[in-house]
């Protein structure tokens, strides 16, 4: 019986690498999930950070936020290299181990909830948000009136890394009930 259980364990661990024929041969298929109370205080949303590629250094990484029912709210894709070092992969790039990738994915998925009220004020009479901010460079797709309305409502907000020195922050638009990017910021 013990041998049977051990055999089962070995098979189960071996099955970790199987998703479909292409990914199984891909070499880097990693995934980390993290719960966060963003859209609801009652039931947690789930952030999934995932890597897929022939090697971990060449992986496409995706960030997916789902509500507690599993519906995708937001997705973002980039490369491991762009998020960890920035820019295009050089010819003499260093290999990336599974452990390094897992650490990266865990860190990427580990978003915290803050409030849109913590964002910088877009002062009246100032042409752009970034001119109004005193720290980072901020960009928003909204006009001043809408931005200030969203900020004043203290909406639950999550922020994730979108590049090595860029962050994007999401809120649920109170009018459409859909997730929307309220700001992107960086140095």
């Amino acid at each position, binding site marked *: 019986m013990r041998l049977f259980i051990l055999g089962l*364990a070995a098979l189960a661990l071996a099955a970790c690498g199987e998703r479909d024929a292409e990914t199984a041969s891909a070499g880097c298929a990693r995934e980390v999930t993290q719960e966060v109370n963003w859209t609801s205080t009652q039931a947690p949303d789930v952030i999934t950070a995932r890597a897929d590629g022939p090697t971990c250094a060449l992986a496409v990484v995706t960030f997916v936020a789902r509500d507690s029912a599993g519906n995708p709210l937001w997705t973002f894709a980039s490369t491991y290299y762009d998020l960890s070092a920035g820019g*295009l992969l050089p010819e003499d790039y260093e290999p990336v181990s*599974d452990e390094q990738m897992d650490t990266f994915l865990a860190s990427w998925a580990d978003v915290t909830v803050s409030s849109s009220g913590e964002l910088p004020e877009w002062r009246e009479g100032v042409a752009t948000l970034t001119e109004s901010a005193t720290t980072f460079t901020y960009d928003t797709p909204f006009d001043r009136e809408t931005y200030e309305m969203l900020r004043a409502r203290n909406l639950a907000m999550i922020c994730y890394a979108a590049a090595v020195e860029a962050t994007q922050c999401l809120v649920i638009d109170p009018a459409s009930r859909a997730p929307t990017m309220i700001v992107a910021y960086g140095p």
Partner: protein
Amino acid sequence: MPRYRSRVARADHDRGVRALRFLLIALALAVSACTQPAGHACDVNVVRELEFAGGEARVRAETIGPNCHQAVALFTIRSGEGDVLWSWTAPLQRAFGDVFEADPDEHLQTFLDRWATPDIATTQSAPEWAALFPGQTTLDQLTYDDVRARDLPMLCHYSGTSRQTCVFWEPIAGGAGQLYDREAVETEP
């Protein structure tokens, strides 16, 4: 007296039940700790090779999700060496409608086959700056005009039911970037 007597002679002799329980717990922990993605019902992909960016490239159009109603769509272009040239993603239903859940076998494969067949062109076929609608490009006019004038390789893939995103290849930087979005243009695969 009970009719059947336990064959366990002593309370601390459980004939391996505890060891078995330990092994089962270890098995559960081993599987839960596994960070490789589990297979999902809507994990489907189509890979196609084509010429882009001055060489062989590989397009991968895929859906990832526990079911096709809740899947995400991911479109990736890699160079012949495996470098990621471009990636794009969106919730499948939000971008492409809710036609996949009803009959995923029929609709999904057809969709992925079509999605993995992008239009290949050059940037001079993009509209002039003056003809663009607001928000159709994220580039400034100087950059847009420059990219268009240099007639660089361009690839347009579906990013909505009737919308395509056009990506240009910048040989100097060795990377790709988004040029503009357009209404879908039907061409023969």
